[in-house]
């Protein structure tokens, strides 16, 4: 790659960063909220993609980890008076602890059993939380008004979570762990034969995904101000996350981001037909799986003009 091109990339990146930081000062409340949702989706999509796109572990339990984060933040903010950032951090931590506890049994499942195992886990959590009086059972809980922050603050926090998880995924993929993950995704038994500690590799990816998802859930809980199990543990979180990654391009870094933008933009275009929006993303998902399994970004990347523009970079 030539020096000029590298330089141009850095300038572009700096401009993008400046634009993202300036956004809450420029745009109206609603647009800032949409961008906040975008960062929330990017954070969920990136962590899901590390598991599904690289390690070949299709988790259908996003809502479970998201919910643990949300409830940890909600409980500590409402009952212990913790600041919301601390609550969200603890949410991520507890979500990762939960992941560590269930890792040993759940990694015994392969392929489709892993998918359903994680789905069962999150559904079991949902039913449990609907009944658990400690967390307010079906009614959920309210956080005090003064514990919340301005919408710009939430925007910046979620931007950090999204950018942080993206950069971490990039970093992880460059390490030995990342290579192990890719080897796993290609063929688990041969990865094991080649000396990859498959359990440890999966565990780190799983913990990372659980942590990011939990933090995102914690921040979102504080942003909402009140949470209840039906919406927080809703499988729709899982569905939409998988949806965005696959539409954007599974197993790529830009794919989850493009997918999140695409799905959110589509939602805005179809704002008057809220329910149809989901149906249409479902149709898109099926069409993408059938005709362009590499997703939007995967397809662009493979095309000839993209290769010419970007060189052999990625």
């Amino acid at each position, binding site marked *: 790659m030539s020096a000029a091109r590298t330089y141009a990339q850095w300038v572009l990146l700096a401009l993008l960063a400046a634009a993202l930081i300036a956004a809450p000062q420029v745009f109206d409340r609603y647009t800032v909220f949409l961008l906040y949702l975008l960062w929330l989706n990017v954070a969920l999509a990136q962590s899901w993609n590390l598991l599904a796109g690289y390690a070949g572990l299709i988790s259908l339990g996003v809502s479970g980890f998201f919910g643990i984060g949300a409830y940890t933040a909600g409980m500590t903010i409402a009952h212990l008076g913790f600041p919301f950032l601390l609550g969200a951090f603890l949410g991520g931590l507890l979500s990762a602890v939960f992941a560590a506890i269930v890792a040993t049994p759940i990694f015994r499942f392969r392929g489709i059993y892993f998918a359903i195992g994680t789905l069962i886990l999150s559904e*079991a959590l949902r039913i449990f939380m609907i*009944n658990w009086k400690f967390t307010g059972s079906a009614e959920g809980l309210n956080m005090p008004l003064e514990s919340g922050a301005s919408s710009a603050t939430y925007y910046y926090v979620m931007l950090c979570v999204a950018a942080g998880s993206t950069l971490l995924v990039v970093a992880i993929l460059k390490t030995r762990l990342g290579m192990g993950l890719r080897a796993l995704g290609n063929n688990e038994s041969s990865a094991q034969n080649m000396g990859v500690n498959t359990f440890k590799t999966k565990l780190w990816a799983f913990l990372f995904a659980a942590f990011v998802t939990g933090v995102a859930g914690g921040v979102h809980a504080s942003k909402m101000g009140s949470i209840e199990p039906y919406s927080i543990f809703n499988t729709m979180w899982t569905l939409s996350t998988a949806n965005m990654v696959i539409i954007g391009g599974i197993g790529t870094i830009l794919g989850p981001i493009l997918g999140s933008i695409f799905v959110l933009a589509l939602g805005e275009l179809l704002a008057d037909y809220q329910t149809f929006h989901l149906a249409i993303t479902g149709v898109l998902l099926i069409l993408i799986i059938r005709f362009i399994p590499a997703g939007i970004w995967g397809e662009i990347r493979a095309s000839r003009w993209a290769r010419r523009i970007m060189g052999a970079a990625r």
Partner: protein
Amino acid sequence: MSFFTLSAGALNGLLLGGLYAVCALGFSLIFGVMGLMNVVHGELLVLGAYLCFFISRALGVDPFIATIAVAAILFAVGWLLQWFVFNPVMQRGIEPALLSAFGLSIIAQSLFLFYWTTNTRSINARYSQTGVQVFNIHLPVMYLISFGLALVLAAGAHLFMTRTYFGKATRAATQDPETAQVMGINVKRVYAFTYALAAAIAALGGTLIGMTFSFVPSSGLTWMLKGFVIVVLGGMGNIAGTLAGALLLGAVEGVGGAILGTGYHDLIGLVIILLVLVARPTGLLGRAR
């Protein structure tokens, strides 16, 4: 906690297991024949329930009569889904088909929500909320009907699979799709027929759910997961195993619900299955896939 309460819970649960069996049979069939985890099965059941609700009301007939029409509709829907959504991606492994089914589940749920709103509905007949007393234990009539239907259906499915040409072709395609194809069996058509049949059975399952309990657009997930639990307990594609797994799940849930309270009823099966899967990652009677 008396012995009486526990045995009442167990007996009711066992009978309810019949309803579970009807709901899980199609799921088990699809899983067994093509290795497809049909996560949209719950929505097929709920679609069956909605169609039965509206058709029986519009025509003023008994829900079970309406089910015949609903089964025909779902048979066609199932055939089309397999032909246009699943068959084209079946060659590429398990994940594309699983995620396509996930996509269908999103579509179905949002369409239910759009056309039929979030209102809780149940299908009513004169007898649907009545019960009988046996040894002082109250048994809902619907549980008894479901149990009877489950036995008839399981026997019918078994005969179909072992005695008819199509059943034999299906079993051949299950064992080895390539060889079956070479032997002149149209595997794609077998798959479409299997899915269609499973969807038609789901029509009856939906009717039973709607008459015994109630349903909303998002009810499907719970029933699909019950199907999965049953398949893991009883072995996939194994009709007798599915029936046994369903009765076992029903009984265990019945006893567990009596001990822990009805709110935890649906949780029990899920926890048990996680424990079972930990011990045997491919199911109790499952073979390695």
